[in-house]
């Protein structure tokens, strides 16, 4: 069932909570509402489920205005799972789920066999069948959440609304609950609208997202459109790293914990990083935070350093995936080195394909640039070229590169020289 929201506004205690919200949730979609605390997510959900009435604007559920439904008719098409504020502790699971049949039962009508069958089905779908005789008070948080979803399903809704269904659950239960809802969305054609705090969960499960900021829509669309580093930096005031999920390809959001306290803000000097193979993510973050102007090369497309450099918006030289560095990219790399004050050679795994990155370091030394060679894990085998790499490294060391055994030392050394 489709939900259409037009110009919805809501004011609470003279504070404008939502302003001119318009959105459409297509039938069968898994629709996520995200945003920082106080951005109006829960208020929007309460307006969609008619707990609150909008000050202006219109919500349409299917072909009809939300307002035109009787409370009972609404309960037949829309089920809502609110955050766990469960009372009714002495009821059994089965009794609680049977309450989902209320909208279909007359005042003095007893539950029919069909109602029992539907309750059983809802219990089965949510994996609660074994729990049915247990009292609510005896259940864990995850089990209670499943029971609430079972009760919602017993309503045979077309639309399921969830308010942070995974709050306070550990990751096993988070996945279990969302997998369940996703399955229902796919198999039963249920339209799902949920508030999610966790951006990664939102990216994995939702096929459409709306990002709220201070009661307005900051971004809307597919997770890839909405979950960009720029959007999140703007709305959450937090720098994050966005990279594709290794298996799913959906955007994943990684925090970049700040170390700013230990790193002084620096003048704008240029540093070129020779990196690759996931050796320099932290370096890029730290050096950029310290205020240096960074460039990176030569990276293979798809490599995690390439992802990191891209999401930090660094100028970089990139080679085709799994390909040896070509002369063309090498030249580009040298050009960036020329512009830099200092070159840092990260502790990259060395293969035949990236020997040119080592040669680039030699060229830099020959041109009189300071080169810092990072060697934190000397014991770890990183030369995969039967000695050719080792020889080049030895040459670099002889050529006057500064050997650094710890990143912190590098930062200190850079701070002193630049």
């Amino acid at each position, binding site marked *: 069932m489709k939900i259409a929201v037009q110009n919805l506004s809501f004011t609470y205690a003279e504070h404008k909570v939502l302003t001119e919200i318009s959105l459409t949730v297509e039938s069968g979609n898994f629709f996520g509402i995200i945003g920082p605390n106080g951005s109006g997510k829960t208020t929007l959900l309460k307006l969609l*489920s008619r707990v609150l009435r909008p000050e202006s604007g219109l919500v349409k559920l299917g072909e009809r205005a939300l307002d035109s439904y009787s409370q009972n*008719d609404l309960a037949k098409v829309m089920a809502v799972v609110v955050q766990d504020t469960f009372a009714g502790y002495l009821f059994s699971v089965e009794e*609680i789920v049977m309450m989902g049949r209320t909208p279909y039962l007359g005042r003095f009508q007893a539950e029919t066999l069909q109602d029992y069958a539907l309750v059983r089905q809802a219990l089965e779908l949510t994996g609660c069948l074994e729990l049915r005789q247990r009292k609510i008070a005896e259940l864990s948080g995850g089990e209670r959440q499943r029971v609430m979803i079972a009760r919602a399903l017993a309503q045979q809704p077309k639309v399921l609304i969830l308010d942070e269904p995974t709050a306070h659950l550990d990751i096993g239960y988070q996945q279990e609950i969302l997998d369940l809802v996703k399955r229902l969305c796919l198999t039963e054609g249920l339209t799902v609208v949920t508030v999610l705090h966790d951006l990664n969960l939102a990216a994995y499960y939702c096929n459409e997202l709306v990002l709220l900021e201070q009661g307005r829509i900051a971004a809307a669309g597919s997770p890839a459109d909405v979950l960009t580093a720029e959007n999140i930096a703007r709305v959450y005031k937090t720098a994050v790293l966005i990279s594709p999920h290794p298996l799913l390809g959906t955007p994943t959001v990684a925090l970049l914990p700040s170390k700013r306290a230990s790193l002084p803000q620096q003048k704008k000097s240029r540093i070129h990083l020779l990196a690759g193979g996931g050796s320099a993510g932290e370096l890029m973050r730290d050096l950029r935070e310290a205020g240096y102007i960074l460039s990176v090369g030569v990276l293979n497309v798809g490599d995690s350093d390439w992802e990191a450099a891209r999401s930090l918006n660094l100028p970089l030289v990139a080679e085709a995936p799994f390909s040896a560095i070509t002369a063309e990219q090498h030249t580009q790399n040298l050009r960036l080195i020329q512009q830099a004050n200092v070159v840092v050679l990260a502790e990259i795994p060395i293969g035949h394909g990236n020997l040119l990155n080592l040669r680039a370091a030699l060229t830099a030394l020959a041109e009189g640039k300071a080169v810092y060679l990072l060697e934190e894990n000397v014991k770890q085998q990183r030369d995969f070229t039967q000695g050719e790499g080792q020889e080049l490294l030895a040459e670099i060391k002889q050529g006057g590169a500064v050997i650094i055994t710890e990143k912190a030392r590098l930062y200190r050394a850079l701070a002193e020289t630049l």
Partner: protein
Amino acid sequence: MKRSQKTSLFAALFAALFLTVVLAAAVGAVAIPAGVTLRIILSQLGMPWIETGDIGRNTEAIVWSLRLPRVLLGLLIGASLALAGSTFQGLLRNPLADPFTIGVSSGAATGATIAIFLNRLSGLHFPHMIPLFAFTGALMAIFFVYNLAKIGGQIPVATLLLAGVVVSSFLSAVISLLMVFAGENMQGIFFWLSGGLMMRSWTEIGFVMPYLLLGFCLLFAYARELNILLLGEEAALHLGVRVDFTKKLLLVTASLLTAAAVSVSGMIGFVGLIIPHAVRMLSGPDHRVLLPASALVGGIFMVWADVAARTVMAPQEIPVGIITAFIGAPFFIYLLRKKKKEIRL
């Protein structure tokens, strides 16, 4: 609760009810064998083939005109208070709510006192004046207590009890003041206030019956909603319950039952508090079982409390409110001291 369990629970309760009526009518200053009371009751109920030739007119009068109305009134009052208590507890989601603790009884008593006072003072009288005044007083009390106790849509135990105490104390002061004004007529008000079933006849039963029947029917009709409201108002809304309407209807109905009970028997405390808890242990939380079972147990309890009231210090009668308080107060303390988790609804 399984269907078979329900059946045996109600079979046991109805058997206890039958025994209570027959035995309670047999006990008293003049001891009458239970077999005799049974025969009198049955013959009066229109079974002329029951032999009553050997029973004296006096005995028959004692059973049918004195004791039986009192027993039946006890049943009705006990049932009303227990039903009102179950409803307040479920609706306010608060295990310590009952007509007495939340000030509704005081409100009804104040209303009734004002009615009696006006009647003595100015001769003002109209049909059902006392119950209507009691009902108005009860509604005003619940309105005040509810709004005093509400914090962010919730009614915490502590604030509810505090609000109940505040409103009750204020209303006691009002009643005392009226009694001072009433002067020599004070005796009547005092007698009625202390709570008892003395000198009640079939007239009083006919008098409160319509209110009680209306109240019983409404509460039983909304038992399913009461269950759902236990899950919280928002959850109830999502299950199709018209929460605001239902809440108001149930609060008014429970207040009506309290007012009707108070207007014939004065203030009888603790019945509405302890009976629902005791019954919940047997019946579980489902109001479709809890409400009728509470009504039956409340009625039976009240009849025996009244038997104690009229026999313990015979020929002196004790107000029945004293008996219920002696049994109820320790139970109340027990509930207060139990861990919060354990007194769930």
